[in-house]
């Protein structure tokens, strides 16, 4: 009996040993369900970048990276289950890829001391690191996105959009409602008329909303959609002959999936983005050589260079860079979640480093700090070229209106702190 127990214990130790020598990145992905078409390329990009680091560089700081995928189906309940089932595996940072899941995980990750990165989604006011110690949403959040869309309207209207009519078509969920407050403030500041049109999940039927748009004839339509809502909205806009160049989506409404079903008629549709588009970056050559050609790609290898693949890859790159920083700060190659959090808070991305990584000009240069977990909030506008079947950047990366956004972040985060009895950290 003793011998059996000893054998069991030894086996357990041996099984656990290799797991210790890994950097674990849970990926709460959704490869099934109504949002799978968006979830798959993001998850592929996220996984492929770590595979590249393992295959080309032998890991990060000599330690192999391991992506732990857990299928959420974009369901908040399943997302929380995934978190609970993976957090004990040495998880370094969570990427929930869902605003609903993010909201549920904020108190959990804070209690468990694990960082969470919600890049371009989640709770916007988490940018206030004094209140949200374990949540990061660099390099841009929804409110930056709203401001960047309005900045674009200012640009194309010579800086004056007073009296213009802007309609927001939004997913009737926590995600879709995020930009409303910011847009209302921006409407006051710039004097445009804002109208709100909610679309219920999943958004397969939007006739009422687009008849209203046809009646009211807004000058511009902004969209906060995801999944089928995007494709239907673009088709309905085409149907009512709304000018595509006056239709601007947030970055979650700006992938190839969203425009391809409408065919050539989607030409000219625009979207805000916080990273570059296409596959004309050296890192993709390495992905092809070390990941796809060796049969180690997470997917079929046919998503490389698409908007959502690039976003997943960018998220992985930021996680890997934060890991390097954490290794540097802690002096250990095998870091803990607490080290990772410190690494994320000290993360600095420079153009020089981006070039070294084979991603020159792919995303902004920025520095995260104790107080600012939200990054620079910069972005650009991309436009769909239906003939070439590709997105093109039509503006430079520019700043969002932090004069409007920062007070909103402070107000919302402080209200959260009060509700949850959180004493803001002293970041001085």
């Amino acid at each position, binding site marked *: 009996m003793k011998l059996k127990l000893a054998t069991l214990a030894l086996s357990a130790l041996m099984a656990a040993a290799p797991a210790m020598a890994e950097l674990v990145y849970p990926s709460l992905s959704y*490869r*099934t*369900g*109504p949002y*799978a*078409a968006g979830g*798959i390329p993001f998850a592929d990009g996220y996984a492929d970048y770590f595979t590249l680091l393992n295959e080309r560089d032998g890991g990060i700081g000599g330690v192999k990276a391991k992506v732990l995928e857990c299928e959420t189906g974009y369901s908040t309940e399943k997302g929380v289950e995934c978190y609970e089932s993976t957090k004990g595996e040495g998880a370094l940072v969570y990427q929930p890829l869902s605003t609903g899941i993010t909201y549920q995980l904020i108190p959990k990750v804070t209690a468990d001391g694990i960082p969470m990165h919600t890049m371009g989604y989640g709770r916007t006011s988490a940018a206030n690191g004094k209140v949200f110690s374990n949540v990061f949403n660099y390099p841009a959040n929804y409110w930056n996105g709203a401001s960047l869309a309005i900045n674009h309207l200012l640009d194309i209207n010579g800086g004056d959009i007073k009296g213009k009519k802007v309609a927001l078509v939004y997913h*009737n969920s926590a995600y879709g409602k995020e930009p409303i407050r910011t847009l209302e403030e921006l409407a006051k500041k710039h004097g445009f008329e804002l109208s*709100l*049109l*909610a*679309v*219920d999940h*999943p*958004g*397969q*039927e939007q*006739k*009422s*909303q687009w*008849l*209203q748009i*046809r*009646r009211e004839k807004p000058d511009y339509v902004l969209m906060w959609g995801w*999944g*089928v809502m995007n*494709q*239907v909205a673009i*088709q*309905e806009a*085409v*149907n*009512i*002959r709304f000018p595509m160049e006056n239709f601007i989506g947030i970055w979650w409404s700006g992938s190839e*999936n969203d425009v*391809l*079903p409408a*065919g050539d*008629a989607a030409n000219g549709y625009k979207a805000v983005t916080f990273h570059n588009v296409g596959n004309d970056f050296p890192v993709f050559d390495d992905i092809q050589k070390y990941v796809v050609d060796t*049969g180690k790609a997470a997917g*079929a290898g*046919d998503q490389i260079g698409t908007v959502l693949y690039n976003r997943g890859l960018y998220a992985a790159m930021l996680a890997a860079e934060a890991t390097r920083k954490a290794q540097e700060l802690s002096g250990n190659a095998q870091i803990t979640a607490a080290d990772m959090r410190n690494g994320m808070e000290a993360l600095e991305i420079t153009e020089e480093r981006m070039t070294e990584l084979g991603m020159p000009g792919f995303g902004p240069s920025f520095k995260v700090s104790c107080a600012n977990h939200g990054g620079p909030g910069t972005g650009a506008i991309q436009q769909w070229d239906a003939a070439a079947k590709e997105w093109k950047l039509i503006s430079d990366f520019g700043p969002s209106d932090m004069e409007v956004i920062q007070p909103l972040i402070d107000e919302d985060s402080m209200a959260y702190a009060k509700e949850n009895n959180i004493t803001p950290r002293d970041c001085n």
Partner: protein
Amino acid sequence: MSAEFYYGVEVFLNGLMAGVMYSLVALGFVLIFKASGIFNYAQGVMALFAAMTLVGLQTGQVPFSHLINATFGVHITHFGWELPALVAIFLTVLVMILFAFLVERLVLKHLVNQEPIILFMATIGLAYFMEGFGDLMWGSDIKKLDVGIPQGGNVWVENHTAFLGGDDFYGFYLDTLDIIAALVAIVLVTVLVLFSQYTKTGRALRAVADDHQAALSVGISLRTIWVIVWSIAGFVALVAGIMWGSKSGVQFSLSLIALKALPVLMLGGFTSIPGAIVGGLIIGVGEKMFDFLIGSPYLGGATENWFAYVLALLFLVFRPQGLFGEKIIERV
């Protein structure tokens, strides 16, 4: 009359059109329920699977290509040919007949004379299986569906009605795709009603619905009837898949159109083909007019999903069997 009045009429007309689209989905449910007493939870997934198969065949996509590539280390995605839409539709109908045959052989055959709830549970399992199987076979990417049906606001209708409401009225907006869907639905319902009422097979379908054992005792082959009815439901699912898929592309969400059919069924009755149409029209008009008159101006919009159920429930208070459903009296 003011422009606002005519915009109200426009919303009413679009409600009718939306109702027809809901009816197309509801029809599939009615057919199977009418003939076998099964509430087919998989009807939405059947629409998705049929549409995926249609696009796959039309574009010459290799089925299970991801699986083949991953297993054998090759990289094949397409055969290199494209099929005309009509040929692809015909082949898809054959696939749906094969599907019906397999459902009967592998699922229903083993559940003859079981409680309706058992059969319902079996269709839930079938739905989940089909979701995964469809993705495995054709991939989960969003596919453009183009069988040549035009869509977009009908310019002729717009131009010929623009004079009605003054300068602020732009003419009635009616989507050409919706108009075609309405015509298709009329033909489909007429054929189905005639088939159900006046053919020997149609009468056999109804006999099976009334009582499995009694139907068997008079020589009706339950298995053949089930194959026939699931084949017809598969065809209806294909039509619904084409109409809805043309708007949104073919993707998983197509299976969720079943949600739009439930209030239609509650209202129209689970056993009436005309009920599915009338129910669809009432739901379509009701939800659109409510959103136009009350939802958007006073409640922040997005009222259509829940209002459809409220409307159906209101009807149920007065007619629990639905407008056209059969009133079932059971002696205890």
